[in-house]
């Protein structure tokens, strides 16, 4: 078993997702079965194979390095769950 209670807690913490005990148990089961299933990739010989990260055949375009002043702070804040004087507001982070 690759995923145990400790591992699921660690991954959940890294993902910033709180899990209750029932969920943790379900995900331990799900993740183990998925990881067992993807194990079959080990049958494939990938020695000297370059990893493929971008399928696009086109060359990344360059743009001119110029600054733009759009002053869109109001627009950006429009959907914020909480805002204060032109800033995003979050719970207090320093004591």
């Amino acid at each position, binding site marked *: 078993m690759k*995923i145990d209670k400790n*591992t*699921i807690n*660690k*991954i*959940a913490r*890294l*993902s*910033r*997702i*709180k*899990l209750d005990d029932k*969920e943790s148990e379900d*995900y331990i089961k*799900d*993740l183990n*079965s*998925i*990881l067992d*299933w*993807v*194990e*079959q*990739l*080990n*049958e*494939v010989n*990938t020695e000297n*194979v*370059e*990893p*493929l*990260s*971008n*399928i*696009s*055949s*086109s060359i*990344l*375009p360059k*743009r001119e390095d110029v600054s733009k002043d759009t002053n*869109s702070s109001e*627009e*950006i804040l*429009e*959907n*914020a*769950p*909480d805002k204060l004087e032109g800033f*995003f507001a*979050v*719970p*207090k*982070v320093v004591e």
Partner: protein
Amino acid sequence: MPKSSLKQTLQDLESKKISIRELNQDYLKRIKEKENLNVFIHFSEENVLKQIDNLEKDNSTKKLKGIPIAIKDLFCTKSMPTTAASKILENFNPTYESFVTQKLLDEGSIFVGKTNLDEFAMGSATNTSFFGNTINPLSKENEPLAPGGSSGGSAAAVAADLCLGATGTDTGGSIRQPASFCGVVGIKPTYGLCSRWGIAAFASSLDQAGIFSHNVEDASILLQSIAGFDQRDSTSAKVDIPNYFENLDDDLNGKTVGIPKEYSIDGTPMEISQIWEDAIKVLEKKGVKIKNISLPHTNYALPTYYIIAPAEASSNLARYDGVKYGFRSEEIDSLDEMYENTRAQGFGREVKRRILIGTYVLSAGYYDAYYLKAQKVRKLIADDFNKAFKECDFIVTPTAPSAAFPLNEKQNDPIKMYLNDVFTVPASLAGLPGISIPFGKDKNNLPLGIQILGKHFDEQQVFNAAVSLERSYE
């Protein structure tokens, strides 16, 4: 009433046989009648009427002027909320327009509403949506069927004739599989043909926008409208977009079709093998050379996909933190708690599952064993296609391993659900264009789809083969 085509409707509007208002009122009426299908997450009659008013005042000629189009609720739209079918974006009103929807607006189309999908496009049945299931319009009474997914709402919108075309996105089959389930045409173009700008990201190296329509001609018209280079998407391709519709040519004489032996898999229903054979016979009669090809790494496409897609998703979905937009939990005693509770309450089960898997395969100590390994196998899968396309002009396979299944089936076993994408995922990993067209029915009279795959940016060949098969079937 027979479903009218986009092409026919454009002619009818041109000749003033019908007005934009009459046309759209007809669609509005049907949308209201079919509310029980839960096709739309957002629909507002008032909004549609406003668009009609505006177009009536507009004297310019526009290619899609007045054409009712449904938009998958993954595309950001200024005039309507955008949710990605997630609670975490329940009240999100984009302040910008996606590239694809802007193109459709520029050409004068009318957005009838935002269609339902699997949450963040993660699913194959449109049953992971925060806003409930969509019902396949082909369901019999008391026997609701899934429309496929993730673009199930868009496929259903076309199948129920609630629009003349719809946008979708396809990461591993999310256009082609629901098109097959709902008996409509669905095309996923080459990766990079349509800009991803303004589409809520799932797996950025795979996500691609595309089209649902009643027939291949309509798809060729609409795809041309949404394709094109956009500097805001770094993977957008600088290629000339042909006039697919004008260039449509159903004469396939002298072409070669590849038939990959690895797509004959155990457990595929007889009827699906049968329509595949039928399609090959039709092509043979049209003078197409049949070439048996091998794509040896096909079996490994699904596990490869289910490492790469969740890995990219875990990174893309990190942005939903309850700070900048969307839902924020009420339980926020500290910043960390705000993040953890917001994401716990804002994401559904499948999305969390994929974030957790993705986080695991990218985490220290496992990256090489899973993510890097999957990227290497992806290279081999792409190479398989490159080799195959030296010997053939296009490839024909079934679209999905089954017809539409009952709602809620396969819900509890993620791997069983993932198998829906067995025929669509390989081409996604290779970034190739693929179309699904209805081709035959199963014993319950449900539609089955045939998939045609082409070379990179050879959408024209894909359309030509599709229109040829479609015309022979009609």
